[in-house]
């Protein structure tokens, strides 16, 4: 039991600003147990409209219990802000890891482990009649014990409406501050027609995540939103980039427009050619290609369900002894930062502090 009282926690570092400046995530120590936790601090005043989403997030997480879903520990109001406490996932989000350490994408085995754990989370969510609607690397959190946990329950929707189970839903998830979430959403969800969408929409998002984890960049990242929509509706499928799918003779411009491999970091010509070399030099397994292809099918009825795809041969490569943190050994865990601590103490006196947006770490 974690006490809903700010005095029981010692903030130790700033992990990230998120939700477009509406919240900041800190690492902290829960003093009674000397246990590391993450605290998300919302400036509720800045986000009047979103207060009900924060509430929804908490209510949903309270209801759900699964080893691969980020648990909720407690929450409380202090001053004008709302604090939500969760376990600390000290390797950060997959999006951070890709940006900082693996711009060309994660090793295939690491992808396999992450995807398998996420499938277990989705299988559970779907059995509870939830659709996550925001499966993306910034919502996949890792720690040095090898845990993989899904966060971002803010956009989750229940198929149970007024006590009745719906066959499909029709509305878009709540918009995020920059509408980036749309890139992971399925064509049928984006279409918003009478056919609607169901939990198979998450399977498409998982397919987009496959590409994001393996390529380092999200498909459609650099194209206008309306073109991304048209492409998806017309059934174009993003691909895993390796020597089979990524032909050599492409100049930077072509590559940028075709594969949108712009992570923001590799924007320079040098970065581009380095990425290109990395893609053409590698070969991902046929099983991996097949998996992402299956998930990214236009017709939701043809996509395998979470339970079905867990039996895919792609996951057979995982051995019991494989340990995710050692597969991505270069990732440094989040540690208490003396500079941050002094800054945080200073902040106690200041009412607000501007934090530069460096990372994306939502939960």
């Amino acid at each position, binding site marked *: 039991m974690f006490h809903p009282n700010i005095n029981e926690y010692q903030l130790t570092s700033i992990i990230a600003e998120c939700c477009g400046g509406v919240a900041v995530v800190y690492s902290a120590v829960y003093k009674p147990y000397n246990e590391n936790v993450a605290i998300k601090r919302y400036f509720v005043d800045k986000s009047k409209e979103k207060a009900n989403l924060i509430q929804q997030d908490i209510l949903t997480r309270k209801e759900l219990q699964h080893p691969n879903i980020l648990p909720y520990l407690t929450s409380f109001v202090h001053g004008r802000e709302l604090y939500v406490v969760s376990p600390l996932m000290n390797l950060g989000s997959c999006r951070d890891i890709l940006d900082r350490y693996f711009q060309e994408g994660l090793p295939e085995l690491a992808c396999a482990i992450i995807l398998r754990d996420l499938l277990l989370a989705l299988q559970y969510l779907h059995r509870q009649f939830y659709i996550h609607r925001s499966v993306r690397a910034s919502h996949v959190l890792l720690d040095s014990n090898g845990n993989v946990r899904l966060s971002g329950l803010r956009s989750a929707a229940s198929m149970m409406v007024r006590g009745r189970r*719906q066959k499909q*839903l*029709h*509305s*878009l998830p709540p*918009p995020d501050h920059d*509408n980036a979430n*749309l890139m992971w959403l399925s064509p049928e969800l*984006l*279409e*918003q*027609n*009478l*056919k*609607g969408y169901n939990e198979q929409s998450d399977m498409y998002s998982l397919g987009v995540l496959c590409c994001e984890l393996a390529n380092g960049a999200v498909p459609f990242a650099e194209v*206008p*939103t*309306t*073109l991304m*929509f*048209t492409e998806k*509706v*017309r059934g174009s499928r993003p691909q895993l980039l390796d020597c089979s799918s990524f032909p050599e003779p492409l100049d930077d411009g072509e590559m940028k427009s075709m594969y949108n491999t712009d992570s923001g970091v590799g924007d320079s010509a040098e970065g581009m050619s380095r990425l290109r070399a990395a893609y053409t030099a590698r070969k991902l397994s046929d099983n991996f290609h097949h998996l992402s292809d299956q998930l990214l099918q236009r017709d939701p009825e043809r996509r395998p369900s979470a339970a079905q795809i867990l039996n895919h041969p792609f996951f057979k490569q995982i051995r019991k002894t494989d340990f995710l943190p050692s597969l991505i050994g270069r990732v440094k865990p989040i540690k208490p930062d003396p500079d941050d601590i002094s800054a945080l103490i200073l902040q106690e006196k200041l009412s607000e502090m501007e934090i530069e947006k460096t990372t994306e770490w939502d939960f």
Partner: protein
Amino acid sequence: MDPRMCRKISSSESLPDGENEEFEVSNIIAPQESEENFLLEGNLGRHSVTWLDDDQIEDLDLNLDHTNLFFHRVDSADIIYRSKKKKCKMVGKYVMGDVLGEGSYGKVKEMLDSETLCRRAVKILKKRKLRRIPNGEQNVQREIQLLRILRHKNVIELVDVIYNDEKQKMYLVMEFCVGVLQDMLESTPSKKFPQRQAHEYFTQLLDGLEYLHGQGVVHKDIKPGNLLLTLDQMLKITDFGVAEALDMFSPEDTCYTGQGSPAFQPPEIANGAEQFSGIKVDIWSSGVTLYNMTTGRYPFEGDNVYRLLEAIGRGEPAPPPQNLAPTLQCLLIHMLKRNPDERPSVQEIRRHDWVRSRPPLLSGETVVGPRSRRSDELHSSTVVPYLVERHYASAHHFFTERELRHGK
């Protein structure tokens, strides 16, 4: 009954519209390089193109079928169509789609928010046209003012208002809806819904009305034509053109003007009362709406507006058909009391037996789906073809008669 009686008195007729070009899909028939192709008048140049509309093409097809002894038969693969280019138009951040419907004030079109990809509907109002409608401009201003403060799941949401001074146009961006109850009723042979379905809509109407009245707003034009449905069957009360915000500091809900649609007006307005209870007007109109949804008829009929108002003024509604559930008959009679004071409040209606228990769907009854004449069965976005034109401008789509017939 004349459908005009379901419209507003103040705007009895919608005006014809001059500019209406972008969604007429026509086809071209291009002559092939074949000598026997004299279908398209001999004096046409080699590369000229004849524009035909769909009716003419059907005539051609008939000719081909019956007179092929006299005409050389043209192979269906030789007739080439090009889909009409849909020119992509943006208003602010919105991409315009097809026309969804036409109101008395102007067109309603589909739009897509290019940033959030959310489907929207836009009411396009032209100043020139508004001036010709009695109280037109005032009504629009009032509607905007009211919708800006109202927020409820059963009240249409006004998302954005865009003005274009140069074109003298105003765009009211609203939530997207797939159907109007009126159109759905008209699409069925019996012009009514199964009781189960009517109950579903009526209870949502009560939720919306309770909210409006709580906010001190009287709608004054409740009718199936002003009740919309979203993709997930959520009912939305729309058209606040003649609605009125009551004086918050007055204990009464007195109103002085009635501009709603004749068939749904209460006796007090039909009789020309100078002041009346606004809330009880909505109760009456909701009663007529429920009557209409469950019987396919109106409690009052008349050959013309004057006869109709005369009949309403007498206040003796046609008794509900005997085959209706007795509880429903009782509710209808109660809501259609001539004396406004005897009509129930929203809270009383909620406690009524018919409202409290959900009627079952009887065998043989089918739920009426939302439909509009202009969209496909799934109500898919009509903006996509415009986006295709915008993003793949070079790719013209050609197809032949044969492909067309084989449902390519």
